[in-house]
């Protein structure tokens, strides 16, 4: 099934995989302090992620992973330092630039963020509808990815009638349906069983092989062991280490 999703446009995808000369994400001495907070949530963080790379983001709860994530999907701007995405300094972007950059990204939120009054199918197709009505190929693509995450029998259901794991799969399907160049996922396997977790990681690694840059936040050591990749470890708002593949 997953093969179908990629094979459909494999040739096209292969031509799209172009490793740019600049890093996909660059944090340069980035700090962020929430308004009215006494301390910065992130201090002096610097790292680079090359296009096509695969990293985990790990660290204890409250270490600053979510803040780093929010900066990566341009929900927050660094209060200090410089954050570059797709070779663009996010501090200089206007609303349309942000929107267009987000279209090149897939984001999996820990709390799923599905639209409650749209069906599974409609939620998944949303990223493809932003340019207007979907064409037949895109509609097939939506069906394939829903089928792949094992929810074709619930394609017409509203999120309210789905379990946590099912919602997570819908969120993942929505994040990958437009074959993003950068995929950031916050605990993407946190609510699914081991078998589905492996399927999701398989999808992610396939995407990565086709050029998608991956950054996955997780506490799951088993997941990291099963699917090894370098880890960015955050502790107390600092980047404590950038470890190699386990």
């Amino acid at each position: 099934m997953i093969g179908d999703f990629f094979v459909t446009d494999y040739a096209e995808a292969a031509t799209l995989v172009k490793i740019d000369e600049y890093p996909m994400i660059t944090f340069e001495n980035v700090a962020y302090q929430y308004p009215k907070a006494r301390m910065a949530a992130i201090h002096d963080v610097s790292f680079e992620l090359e296009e096509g790379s695969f990293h985990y983001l790990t660290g204890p709860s409250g270490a600053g992973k979510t803040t780093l994530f929010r900066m990566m999907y341009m929900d927050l701007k660094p209060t200090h330092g410089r954050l570059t995405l797709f070779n663009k300094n996010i501090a200089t972007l206007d609303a349309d630039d942000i929107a267009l950059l987000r279209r090149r990204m897939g984001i999996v939120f820990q709390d799923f963020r599905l639209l409650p009054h749209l069906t599974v199918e409609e939620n998944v197709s949303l990223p493809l509808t932003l340019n207007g009505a979907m064409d037949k190929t895109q509609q097939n693509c939506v069906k394939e990815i829903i089928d792949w995450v094992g929810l074709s029998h619930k394609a017409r259901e509203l999120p309210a009638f789905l379990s946590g794991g099912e919602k997570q799969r819908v969120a993942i399907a929505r994040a990958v349906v437009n074959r993003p160049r950068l995929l950031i996922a916050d605990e993407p396997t946190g609510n699914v069983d081991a078998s589905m977790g492996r399927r999701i990681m398989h999808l992610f690694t396939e995407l990565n092989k086709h050029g998608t840059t991956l950054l996955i936040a997780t506490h799951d050591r088993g997941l990291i062991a099963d699917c090894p990749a370098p880890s960015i470890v955050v502790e107390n708002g600092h980047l404590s280490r950038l470890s190699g593949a386990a």
Partner: protein
Amino acid sequence: MKFRIDPSAKKALSLGKDAVFRLLVLMMILLGWLSAMGAAALFSLEEVYHQWQLNQKSHISVYLMPDSTPQQIQTLEEALIIIQGVQDMRPLNQSVVRELVAPYLGYDTTLPMPKILDVKVDPNLDRDVFDARVKELFPLAEVDDARSMLQTVAESVRFVQAGALLAAVAVFLVLASLVALTVRSGLRAQQHALNILQYIGATNAFLKGLILRQVFARAALGMCGAMALSGASLLVLNVFYAPLIPYVTSKVWAAAVGVPMLLMLVVMLAAYWSAGATLEADYDINAPKKKAA
């Protein structure tokens, strides 16, 4: 470039879920009807004034002493008819004169009645020449001079019209504010959906398009409702108050239809501005984040 928006995208940001936004149709009907009727009344008043003014300007009454003889009156008629602008004249019947003064003196008055000469004139009349000729032959005669009264009435009519215009501007401003508020309130109620759409890459133009389509649909419904209500009101007035018919001109009907259309334009401009301002603030990554409603 595709202009058709996918139905699921339309469903994604449904402002109709907000109770305040749902009131837009009702507000539009009510305010549209009020302002349309106001404008219709304005044009009717103009027509009433215009017709009355024409009547006042085309007739002059010359009041002669009660003891004036028919011979004297005929001499006066002969002297006046040759003045440029005088078209015709006739002495009013004494019973008509009695009717005219009855409100002031009563029907059983024994006072001698004045003689009244009703003169029909056109705009070429030189009033000074006319008045001089009357005074020459009848020094004690009184001639109606409606000019100052017309001036006063004209000023009053203009004052009422200016007041109505101000009221119309106020209605437009109120509606614009209400629309801005309802759009903002609708977006706040849909903050969660709005944020999700923004996170997956919806541009402000796309979101604004979704919002304006919904505002347009509701405002158009309201506009049609206001037009229908205004039209029905004029028809009812025509049926149940026949004296009004001559004053319900094509301009009055145009106002009943045109004002709701103008209001629709105001609504769309207000919605465009309000949606733009709200979305810009939402995309401002320096701004404090708003909580979903």
